[in-house]
């Protein structure tokens, strides 16, 4: 007698349980094998089936049954080889014979913990609903009563400051012969300030990103600065930077990040005496919006030769950074000491700011920083931010949306009259639905001095497949089908760094025009409309009340 398991296939998953079901069309497929070769997770494979085919022939046709062996493309029902929906198969198929289809009735979360390992992934929060930022409208149109600004012809200055700004009454300024003069003997410390473009590329490490992707972004940023005159800057993420870049004149466009694992900092410290340019700033990572309470996580699959060299670690080991900076006792101590140490390392010439995950307690950190004369800003990362690797529970349910978190921090600064002293950098879901310019403008009007983007630039510059339906999201496994978040040369050679750089430039040039198109009818062109909340409205009274903006319907 056959065992029951073989007869009823019990304890196996049905394809209906899977998040993506591969629709393969026998009649269109020419069996070229490209789809199965390209699938990063081996969710599909060439297989053979035996078919019973009836056909009739001859002058007196009589149906005849025939058993025929056919090659097919078969989807695996092994949970470890589930189809991630990346659709690379559809991309390479010459005959449109195959594509994955999202299955909203999937039971994926019930099964993705084999071996007692909770589901870990990369990407973003799986919540396709539009965020608050996409519900905001710009309703203060001044062109009806006043001469309109012309986004195409008038001069616009879309720039912001990074670094602590002294209040005017503390500036070492004196009047000499009817002119203002800086009193250089005053002994007043004037913190370093950078004028940058108000959208920065956020912290994505070499390690999380492939060498080609990182290089493409870096080239794009450099081109924007050197050729287009747009001071766009980019943060390194944890894990260091190549020595060649550290010692180059391009360093001023980059923000090295120090995080709780301190990966890469041996190499940075070694390069310090040889640096010919100061970096734009230093970012100290305390938290990440996508996974609050977790440190960085670079899975062993991605720790190959280049990464082990830059980070100074052995190859093939998991690199989990601790959730907090272990050498410090408290957040207050950590913030104060690290900011001061980092400032000192570059002779107090470089702005140093912390990055935290959005949280109810963000205001506590903020108030701590306001009273720290060396703090150069605060970056707040909301829960719609992305990550290269995290536990699914962290990504989907933990964190604080950026809109209200940023707003309450800004209003807290306003209440203390210090809104111009400590720039707030907003991140986490900026451009989530592709609306980079509107999300940026909204955050600026809610009080941000600058925004930081990650997923958006991965999608726009390199065609990342990820979305909020858990599509792809295997950044953690080093299997990125686009070659964006992998260290496997077979995958990342698919990605041309020049094309990435070109797209980065195109993205920033176009968003610059869109920002002008937003600011012009509202009559703003000379300075960034930071905190110009009277321009915003939303069609939800509760949100309007929370954000202290107009409710329009």
């Amino acid at each position, binding site marked *: 007698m056959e065992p029951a398991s073989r007869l009823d296939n019990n304890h196996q998953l049905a394809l209906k349980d899977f998040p993506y079901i591969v629709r393969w069309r026998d009649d269109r497929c020419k069996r070229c094998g490209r789809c199965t070769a390209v699938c990063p997770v081996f969710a599909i494979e060439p297989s053979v089936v035996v078919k019973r085919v009836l056909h009739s022939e001859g002058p007196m046709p009589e149906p005849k049954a025939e058993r025929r062996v056919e090659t097919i493309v078969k989807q695996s029902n092994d949970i470890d080889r589930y189809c991630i929906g990346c659709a690379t198969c559809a991309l390479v198929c010459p005959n449109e014979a195959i594509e994955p289809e999202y299955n909203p009735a999937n039971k994926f979360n019930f099964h993705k913990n084999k071996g007692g390992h909770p589901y870990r992934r990369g990407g973003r929060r799986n919540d396709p609903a539009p965020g608050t930022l996409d519900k905001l409208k710009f309703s203060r149109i001044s062109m009806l*009563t006043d001469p309109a600004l012309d986004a195409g012809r008038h001069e616009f200055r879309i720039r912001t400051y990074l670094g602590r700004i*002294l209040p*005017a009454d503390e*500036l070492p*300024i004196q*009047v000499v012969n009817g002119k203002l003069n800086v009193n250089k003997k005053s002994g007043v410390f004037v913190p370093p300030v950078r004028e940058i473009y108000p959208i920065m590329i956020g912290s994505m490490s070499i390690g999380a990103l492939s060498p080609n992707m990182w290089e493409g972004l870096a080239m794009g940023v450099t081109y924007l600065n050197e050729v287009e005159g747009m001071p766009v800057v980019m943060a390194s993420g944890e894990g260091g930077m190549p020595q060649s870049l550290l010692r180059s004149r391009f360093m001023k466009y980059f923000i090295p990040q120090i995080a709780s694992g301190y990966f890469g900092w041996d190499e940075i410290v070694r390069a310090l005496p040889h640096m010919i340019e100061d970096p734009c700033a230093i970012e100290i990572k305390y938290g990440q919006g996508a996974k609050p309470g977790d440190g960085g996580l670079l899975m062993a699959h991605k720790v190959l030769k280049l990464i082990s060299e830059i980070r100074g670690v052995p190859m093939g080991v998991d690199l989990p950074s601790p959730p907090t900076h272990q050498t410090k006792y408290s957040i207050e101590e950590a913030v104060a000491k690290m900011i001061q140490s980092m400032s000192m390392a570059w002779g107090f010439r470089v702005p140093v700011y912390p990055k935290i995950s959005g949280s109810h307690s963000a205001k506590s950190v903020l108030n701590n920083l306001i009273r720290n004369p060396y703090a150069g800003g605060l970056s707040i990362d909301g829960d719609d931010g992305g990550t290269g690797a995290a536990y699914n529970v962290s990504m989907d349910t933990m964190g604080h949306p950026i809109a209200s978190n940023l707003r309450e921090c800004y209003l807290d600064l306003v209440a203390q009259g*210090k*809104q*111009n002293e400590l720039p707030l950098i907003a991140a986490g879901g900026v451009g989530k639905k592709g609306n980079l310019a509107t999300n940026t403008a909204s955050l600026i009007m809610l009080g941000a001095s600058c925004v930081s983007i990650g997923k958006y630039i991965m999608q726009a510059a390199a065609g990342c497949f990820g979305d909020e339906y858990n599509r792809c999201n295997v950044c953690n496994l080093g299997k990125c089908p686009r070659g964006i978040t992998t260290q496997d040369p077979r995958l990342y050679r698919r990605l041309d760094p020049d094309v990435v750089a070109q797209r980065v430039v195109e993205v920033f040039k176009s968003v610059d025009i869109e920002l002008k198109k937003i600011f012009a009818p509202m009559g703003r062109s000379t*300075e960034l409309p930071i905190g110009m909340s009277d321009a915003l409205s939303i069609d939800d009274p509760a949100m309007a009340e929370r954000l202290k903006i107009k409710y329009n319907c």
Partner: protein
Amino acid sequence: MCRLAAITSSDYFSPMENILALETMKEGHDGSGMGLMMKGMGGEFEELREYPILSGICSEAGVKVLDDYMNKAGFKLKYTWTPKTKTVRGIEGRDNYFARVYDYPDMYKDKPMEIKESLLLKTRLSLRDLGRADESIIVFTFYPDIVALKEVGDPLQLGEFFGLEKSSLKAKIIFAQGRQNTNYAINLYACHPFFLQGICTMTNGENTAFVPIREYLTGRNLPGYVGYNSDSEVFCHILHYTYKKLGYPLHYYKDVITPLKQEDINNRSDADAVTYLKRSLRPLCIDGPNCVIGFTPDGTCFMVQDAKKLRPGAVGGVKGKYGLMSEECGLESAVPGRDRDSDIFPMKFDMVIIKPDAKEVVVWNQLHG
């Protein structure tokens, strides 16, 4: 577009000159308010120059409350001026318009001006609070040698209503603004010109950067930075903050409200200071469209535009009398005998500064510093 008519002179003149200038600039529907701000008072006020003048409007009940308050505070009434109002169609008059001259309370008489100024400001704000709910007390200014008159209506009709043609009210600097095409349900506190401790401005156009500027100013914790019934009141307070509190020379007002690009700042001899200033006072940057006309405590008058000169203006006159107007025809009305070829139409980097007693006109260019 609201009309602006400012005249500065070495001799006393009647505010009717400003009103007639406003009238020549009138276009379309008008009548939602006029404000007059006078400095360098003549007539009955000339001898009382050292004493503070309280300008405002009270209901009958308000007068009693005001008197009570001022008596308790120790101010002694020395002189009261009231306009001889007439019934004019279209003007809804109020009970009492006044400019009252007070003597300081005894304990303040010998105090320095700075302390006296604080007392005057505190008193004005208290009176304003007392009459806020029922508009029984409206006070515009409480300062030596300053008289303010404001009401809703067409400027020419208001001139008739206040009987200004035959009035002895005269001054050496008079600012007048006529609000045009705005709503009628206005609060008189929204009426230009605005004044704070010797600093005055009036503006036309919308202030698109109003909210961040207001939030910044209120965060300075200075008692006079309140009100903001008009988005233009901040222009006065920005000048007060930079000129009076920070002690910057007047022309840096231009650098604060319309900061240059860093590349342009770098060409200035005071580049380091202007760079700091631009950063530290970033929230005070305006974006127009605005023409701002103002005066400082020493009687210097100025005109300045937004960074794109979206609101023009004209300055002209003869030595001893200059007009600063939102339009050329206003200048024609105020100083007809001048050399028109010498009229100044300040460009986007310019700040026109007229020295006290209308002695001299200087055009300061921001690019050259």
